[in-house]
């Protein structure tokens, strides 16, 4: 066998794609003493599953609290079978768990996908790059005729989530060690960000979340503000929201037209 063929078999055995009693086992591997070859392979197989599910446990502590250990292990192993790790950082293994839960929802708890999305975002911003915070005066200093074409460069440690349930309330209950509410359906949005080394999240009005998402996409300030157009006082609300974004250090830089 070539090195590649040997590793293909080993990989199949470790990940469970091949059975431990595969007839190739004894031809390729060698044990000694009282431990059979399939038991030796089983050590690697057990560690593979345990290590990756443990990585998920660290990333999704409140999902673990909700599901309890056994059910979380079942979920983690099902997820692992569908989405083997594709990144050298094991901490990134859970990046598709929220989407997996959306595709395979627990009918009684469809809000778990949103909880996973929130926990993943909290994990992601923890490791995001540092950035400067733009001063609010930067915006005020723009000439009025060009302000609409300016663009906001948002902090790399900011995420905006669109949710189908109130995952923030569920997260808060679980974080506090309290029993969870039944699912609270309804579209909602949340911002997740880091200040120093501390991670925060808060709910956002849907129009503000849409404006923030536009800013994250690099849209012009005019387009960002257009998401407030249907509000009772669009200008005041847009200004109020923008002031909040600067105050929370979500804006790293203001790029004037032509810059």
């Amino acid at each position: 066998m070539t090195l590649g063929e040997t590793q293909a078999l080993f990989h199949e055995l470790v990940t469970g794609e091949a059975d431990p009693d595969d007839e190739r086992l004894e031809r390729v591997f060698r044990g000694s003493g009282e431990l059979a070859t399939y038991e030796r392979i089983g050590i690697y197989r057990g560690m593979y599953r345990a290590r990756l599910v443990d990585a998920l446990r660290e990333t999704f502590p409140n999902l673990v609290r909700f599901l309890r250990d056994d059910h979380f292990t079942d979920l983690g192993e099902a997820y692992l079978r569908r989405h083997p790790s594709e990144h050298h950082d094991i901490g990134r293994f859970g990046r598709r768990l929220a989407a997996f839960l959306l595709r395979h929802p627990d009918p009684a708890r469809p809000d778990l996908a949103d909880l996973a999305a929130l926990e993943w975002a909290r994990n992601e911003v923890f490791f995001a790059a540092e950035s400067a915070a733009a001063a609010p005066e930067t915006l005020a200093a723009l000439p009025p005729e060009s302000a609409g074409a300016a663009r906001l460069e948002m902090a790399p440690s900011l995420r905006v989530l669109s949710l189908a349930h109130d995952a923030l309330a569920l997260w808060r209950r679980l974080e506090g060690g309290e029993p969870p509410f039944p699912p609270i359906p309804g579209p909602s949005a949340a911002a997740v960000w880091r200040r120093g080394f501390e991670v925060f999240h808060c709910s956002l009005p849907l129009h503000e979340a849409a404006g923030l998402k536009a800013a994250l996409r690099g849209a012009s300030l005019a387009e960002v503000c257009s998401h407030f157009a249907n509000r009772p006082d669009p200008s005041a609300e847009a200004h109020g929201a923008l002031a909040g974004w600067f105050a929370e250090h979500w804006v790293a830089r203001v790029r004037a037209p032509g810059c």
Partner: protein
Amino acid sequence: MALRRLELGHGIGLRTKHFARFEAEASPVEWVEAVAENFMAEGGRPIALLEKVRRDTPVAIHGVSLSIGGSDPLSDVYLRDLRRLVSRIEPALVTDHLCWGTYRRKYVHDLLPLPYTEESLAHVAGRVSAVQDLLGRQILLENPSTYVAFQESTLTEWEFLAELSQRADCGILLDVNNVYVSAHNLGFDPLAYLDGIPPDRVGQFHLAGHSNKGRYLLDSHDGPVAPPVWNLYREALRRFGRVPTLVEWDERIPPLEAVVAESRLAAAVEADELAPALREAS
């Protein structure tokens, strides 16, 4: 080119559980080892802490995902992140494992053993050279703990490592606990292993705890160094002399003081073992 052995003394692994202590205080040990993948993110607390620690204390960057023995091409993304980390930290040592851990770009996050053949040797030596060229420095490869061997192996692990270190001009991170665990699990003589390692290639020792699972030993890093591993460490010191030594503790991690105490115990064992040689030299 020979391996220049550094005088780092005794260190411990930098683990999340102890971050707050390292943030607030000076390093309690002579050097620390950081698992590369845990510090590759562009921002956040881990890399900020590592930069702080690095200002006063030598750091070794210890990778677990290079997959130097893998049949997949080396990952450009991994090498980019590793190179960025190495440039940022300027570590005293860059190390990884003699193993593989990816197949068709899927990571198993384990240190899987290789068949020790001429094919593997040529494959790994070429990849080590490529990595060293990219980083512009030598790397050290660590012997893995193993639970299974291969029918087609024609070399022992120590023969493989010795030859690899010459061909690729790399160093050896000799994990004394791994030698002991693999020797027990695969039925070879750990002293023969030590005898087969070229002393001038050994640039670092690892010590760690293991668990006795009845019919095999598990390299669990979840407790103090076991007595027979201390004995093997003494044997290693006799053969290789004073080598930068690091205590790893990754599961059921105790308070910082306990890990530091284990590192100081290693320093005491080293002093005790090397004292006659030092007296003779002076």
